[in-house]
């Protein structure tokens, strides 16, 4: 699964630690999601969508799309 988390975070000038804190996860988890090594659960993806005030599919896309 691809995601735009790193771009969206950079646009807002947030650090991984700040984003991790806002999503209540570890910084390592944010790093793994940004690198595409770990796919977040649906609740975490929705939480990220709410935080960025975007639709979930605007942040996370299926690899085949």
């Amino acid at each position, binding site marked *: 699964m691809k995601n735009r988390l790193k771009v969206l975070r950079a646009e807002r000038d947030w650090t991984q630690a700040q984003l*991790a804190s*806002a999503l209540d996860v*570890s910084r*390592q988890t944010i790093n793994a999601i940004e690198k595409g090594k770990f796919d977040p659960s649906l609740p975490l993806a929705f939480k990220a969508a709410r935080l960025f005030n975007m639709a979930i599919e605007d942040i996370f896309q299926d690899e085949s799309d």
Partner: protein
Amino acid sequence: MSLSSQNNENDYSKRNCHNTRHLRNWTIAWVISMAIAAFAPKYVWDFNTVLSIIGVVICIAVGFGMLLANRKYLQGLDEMQRKILFDAMALSLGVGLVLGLSYELLEDIKLITFQPEIPHLVMVMCFTYMGGIIAGHRKYQ
């Protein structure tokens, strides 16, 4: 949009540190209670039955306290950290089952002369668990 206020108060890290300390304390208490239950009957109270039973009951009770602390620790982790630990646990259980039964078999078919001991299996499972955690962290690094 600023997240500076949230950065000062990292709930996840604080919760994780608290749960880790809690689990460490329960684990130390369990090891001590286990040592007392194992060695005190011989060296302290000369196999007094009542005291030995109390020692074992305390050891089991503290062991369950440790299990509850471990459950709280796991529930406090985020989904990736939890997955790393669950994968390591599954690996440890599988290796323990396969090697444990094979180890037992070695004595049954007279390939080893000594009695297989549970602590050997526990050590294998601990090392496998640690290896699984390290591999999990490297995988998601």
